[in-house]
């Protein structure tokens, strides 16, 4: 499958102009000042190393800051069957009176997989079109998984929907983000009844409230449980284990290399 991915992967856009012009343009892009500025504007994703947080850090890595750019849109062409899906979804949404750009904030093609970042208010419409349009026909929803990104301010909680088209033998992923302060995403149970338990699970573990779900209750945790365990601010818990006189700390308190 990967062979095919590489073959169809989007090629860099061809530039026109003389070699000198291209060289000049590239040189401007690579100016250390500009590159440094760009890098510093990126979000800090990680600080320190070896789990050292106290003054006992003699490695000097304690002040390390690792930055990463925000998720960027993939340029057209997306490759494989992805362009077809994007075009068809755009056409289907137009027919429903929604502009593609309004509903989809970002399209990412990564590792041979296509992801539409859907604005949450348009999720039910997008899901409906995905299922019903003859050229899309994603009739099977494989699941919903929640992901918590505490550092993405204003879009901390993500719900990720995996769709399968058996008719066309294709896969696509929808990703919807919502802020922690307002953790509401419209439910897609009306379109995909199988989302029932998946949304309950995501609610249970992340606290995302799926509006319009017929009975959004906890599913894995006990009904009277406090908190949502898969969130990053929820501790793993665990107790130290004594072994032959020494004490092994619980996993979340051990040295971390992250």
């Amino acid at each position, binding site marked *: 499958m990967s062979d095919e991915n590489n073959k169809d992967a989007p090629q860099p856009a061809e530039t026109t102009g003389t070699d000198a012009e291209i060289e000049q343009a590239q040189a401007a892009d690579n100016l250390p000042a500009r590159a440094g500025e760009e890098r510093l504007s990126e979000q800090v994703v990680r600080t320190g190393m070896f789990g050292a947080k106290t003054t006992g850090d003699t490695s000097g890595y304690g002040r390390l800051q690792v930055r990463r750019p925000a998720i960027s849109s993939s340029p057209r062409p997306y490759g494989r069957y992805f362009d077809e899906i994007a075009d068809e979804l755009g056409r289907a949404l137009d027919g429903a009176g929604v502009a593609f750009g309004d509903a989809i904030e970002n399209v990412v093609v990564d590792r041979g997989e296509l992801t539409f970042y859907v604005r949450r208010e348009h999720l039910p419409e997008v899901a409906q079109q995905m299922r019903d349009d003859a050229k899309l026909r994603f009739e099977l929803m*494989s699941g919903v998984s929640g*992901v918590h990104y505490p550092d993405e301010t204003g879009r901390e909680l993500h719900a990720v929907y995996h769709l399968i088209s*058996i008719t066309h*033998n294709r896969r696509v992923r929808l990703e919807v983000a919502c802020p922690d302060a307002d953790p509401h995403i419209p439910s897609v149970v009306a379109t995909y009844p199988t989302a029932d338990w998946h949304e309950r699970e995501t609610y249970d573990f992340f606290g995302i409230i799926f509006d319009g779900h017929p009975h959004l209750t906890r599913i894995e945790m006990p009904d009277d449980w406090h908190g949502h365990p898969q969130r990053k601010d929820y501790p793993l818990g665990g107790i130290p284990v004594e072994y032959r006189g020494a004490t092994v700390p619980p*996993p979340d308190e051990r040295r971390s*290399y992250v």
Partner: protein
Amino acid sequence: MTAPTTDAYDGAAEGRVFNVSGNDWDEVVAAVREEGEEKLVVNMGPQHPSTHGVLRLILTLDGETVTDARVGIGYLHTGIEKNMEYRTWTQGTTFCTRMDYLTPLFNEASYCLAVERLLGIEDRIPERASIIRVMMMELNRMSSHWVANATFGNELGATTIMTNGFRARERVLDLFEVITGLRMNHAYIRPGGVIQDLTPLAFEKTRELLKEMPREISDIRKLLDESPLYLARTKDVAYLDVAGCMALGVTGPVLRAAGLPYDLRKTQPYCGYENYDFDIPTYDGCDVYSRYRVRMDEMEESLKIIEQCLEKLQHTDGPVMIEDAKIGWPARLAIGPDGMGNSPDHIKHIMGTSMEALIHHFKLVTEGFRVPPGQAYAAVESAKGELACHAVSDGGTRPWRAHFRDPSFVNLQATAATCVGGSVADVVAAVASLDPVIGGVDR
């Protein structure tokens, strides 16, 4: 034996409550009759032999007819996905193998395929490793199907099916023990390949299994395929057609028993399944009997695939772990005098000749490898349906998130659709035909 305790609950909002805790059925029946109320809500489980673990069914009955069926799960929730966020990517296999304990190798395979896609090393997995993965998954498909059929027989009261089924499954587990060292929870498939090559004894035992298994299968088929008792309990019971399966997300043998030949091994091949010659059995009965037939046929197809695997392994040499020292753990193991697998050459190298190799080994094992940021979704056709892993990395040495789409979890949603309108006795058949394993449902 205690008398049904009812008095304390007479004022409860749900009506009068009867606690049954032994052979006190006569008293309960008399009390219910006296009550005159026709609607009865019965809690089946979480401790019930026919619920495949700790599953709670809340059935509303009108006489013998089920008018509503609700499912309570979560009794076996172990937080495996949360725990995986606190271990390295390699250690993740040790956790996820324990989810659906009847399909450990599928759990590992889906996870490892997702991690490999994140790492971008899908093309660099040695061919021998892929063949071994396929062989192990097909063996696992058989052992899982044997349990599905055996426990179902037991629940219908046919203990012969149970003992025969578990005996056949035991043969597969013995083979697993020879190959991986463990009967269950193997952590055998790792990111980058598998942890150990097959030994000559493993080949011998696999051939032995290929000889014996067809007889085991035909024995059960002779017993069940045309048995009037079995047909009466399974034919046209728990009907679920393709539209129902699609809406509820049901995959695997249940979907194929509704007539749709959807199998990821054919439609979206992984681990080189496109190179094997096998069929996808389908039936169109949409009932418990068709699901049984699909499972039996799939076992026969699995035997065909395993035979091809052995043939391929004869002509495919090479490593079983990716040749990338930054990812692959030592995988040329030998059994030491203490019975544990070890890699003498590797130990000699890191302890005796190269300080750098020792540092690399130490970092790889304690710190683990870093996985580039992003997300990947890898699905395999497990014995129960589409089993997929959604792995998210932040660029670190541990999964940011690993979520499993377990087929048992999804298929169990079809309980109400298959049970409502039938009789209580058919609930057992319906749930068993969905083949849920609560370890996978609750994770």
